């Protein structure tokens, strides 16, 4: 009997252990899909119902009939797209200046921006709420989106990316008479595209899933994003379990699909941002 190469010998055990773990990790999603296709009575029955008697796809139609799902989806999409674009614009500009330009007071301004990274969000949330209230933006998408346009973390990420680039390219462009914005736009920005995609991914994930801020600035369920809209359903006894489960799946599906499609990029990006 010939044996496979050395390192392969224990792989069946490894697969067994990893699949067991994966089953546990995936169980809530699987259960959610099954229950979202069941009747309310099946979900709550004391005798086990592993598989629904008939698959009730109409529960998904009920989501749109019973809940302001499309409004909330629109809000989530809007705030996420606007925040991601704004963070990319503001953080790359500032990150470039902090990494590659000389100006008086740079160290101080940079320290002030980065100090935000160490402050828990509750510390600035109350005054942010007051500002939004004073601007008359409570309950509007403007209020939802505003503080999240600016990101200290994103600035840190972009600064790190620009610091890693060689100085020669920049010098050459400057000698050719390009102004600093042209150097930034045509030469340097294209070089940090991978880091920009990391910023876009982390900002999307954060904006899509965030709960506390939308919860405090909105009260009408049609002006909430999906995260807050679903949270307020938890105690709502007028909506059936399967319909809430279906709505939850529809709400989280876009990010899950996005991350499955972009997995390599996401995983590499998070790993590097995690390792500084």
């Amino acid at each position, binding site marked *: 009997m010939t044996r496979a190469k050395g*390192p*392969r010998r*224990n*792989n069946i055990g*490894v*697969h067994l*252990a*990893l*699949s067991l773990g*994966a089953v546990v990790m995936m169980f*809530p*999603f699987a259960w959610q899909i099954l229950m979202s296709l069941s009747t309310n009575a099946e979900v*709550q029955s*004391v005798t*086990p119902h592993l598989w629904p008697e008939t698959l009730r796809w109409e529960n998904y139609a009920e989501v749109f009939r019973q809940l302001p799902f499309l409004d909330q989806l629109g809000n989530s999409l809007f705030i996420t797209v606007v925040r991601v674009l704004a963070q990319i*614009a*503001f953080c790359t*500009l*500032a990150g470039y200046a*902090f990494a590659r330009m*000389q*100006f008086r007071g*740079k160290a101080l301004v940079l320290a002030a*921006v980065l*100090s935000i990274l*160490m402050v828990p969000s509750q*510390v*600035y949330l*109350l*005054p*942010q*709420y007051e*500002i939004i209230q004073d601007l008359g933006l409570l309950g509007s998408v403007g209020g939802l989106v505003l503080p999240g*346009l600016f990101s*200290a973390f994103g600035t840190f990420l972009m600064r790190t990316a620009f610091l890693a680039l060689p100085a020669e390219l920049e010098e050459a462009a400057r000698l050719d008479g390009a102004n*600093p*914005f042209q150097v*930034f736009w045509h030469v340097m920005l294209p070089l940090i595209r991978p880091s920009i995609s990391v910023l876009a991914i982390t900002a999307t994930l954060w904006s899509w*899933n965030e709960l*506390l801020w939308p*919860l405090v600035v909105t009260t009408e369920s049609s002006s909430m994003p*999906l*995260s807050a809209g*679903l*949270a307020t359903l*938890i*105690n709502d006894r007028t909506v059936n379990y399967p319909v*809430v*489960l279906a709505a*939850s799946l529809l709400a*989280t599906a876009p990010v*899950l699909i996005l991350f*499955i499609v972009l*997995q390599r990029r996401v*995983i590499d990006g*998070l*790993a*590097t941002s*995690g*390792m500084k």
Partner: protein
Amino acid sequence: MTTTTQPVRAPSSDKPKKPRRDGFWPWLFVAPLGIGIAVFYLWPIVQTAWFSLTEFGVFGGTTFTGLSNYQELFSNGDLYKAIGNTLLYTAIVLLNVPIAVVVASLLNTPGLRGASVYRVLYFLPYVAMPTAVAMVWRIIFNGDFGVLNRVLGWFGIDGPYWISTPGAAIVAVSVVGLWSSIGFSVIVLGAGLKQIPPELYEAAELDGASRWRQFRSITVPLLTPSIAFLSVVTVIAGFQLFDMLYAVLGTTNMNATVFDSMSLVYLFYQAGFVTNDKGLAAAVAMVVLVLVAVATAIQFRLQKKWVHVD
């Protein structure tokens, strides 16, 4: 604003590099972000510190009340309960790190097929919206028809009403937190494992070291920087517990157990936006700031003792 015109400079003349001045350009670059950060983050931090020393009037306006918000906070049991719950949650969620060390090193097995599929499966709970997975977890934990208690029943364990029993509820929320945090740690540790030179394992193999011995003597020590990073991140995130708690347990006016399971951030939310005692909420926020700073400082201090540096 200064409008210095840049003198044309010879390409490579002066050896000790004089710092180049960029005139007003850097300020243009920094301004959009800088103004936003100043208005929405920096100034609010100062304001919260001030709010914590004041009482908000019913018709607007604030009165300076010194330390009375802090006195109220420290004399009333809610704060200690919230700290206790937050620490318990953090402790349980920290278990994600050892679990992820095992998963990541299994994924790192040479010649393993399908590693990227496993990685995605472990990662999805981290990406999923907390409020979207909360409902199914409520159903799994349900005391009457929940699948968890049914499974526990097979082993002769009579599970509690998880969501509505004080004490059990915070454990339930912690389990969900643990489930959702493993994926991120697996990714970070996976990157850490890539840094370990394969020759170390080959040498160990030649010396006849067992898999377990290699794991203990090579993998774990060389992963300590990643493990240290993950513990700091987990503790900071643990102190921020809100979404999962709110989503799984619901609001206080519906479920009295939530009062007993409150986290620090929930206490902040409750004071600031439910009972509208903004001064007290600001004091809670300041306490969280101090606690996070202390916890992080302690961890950095301790890490000098166990983190491998080369």
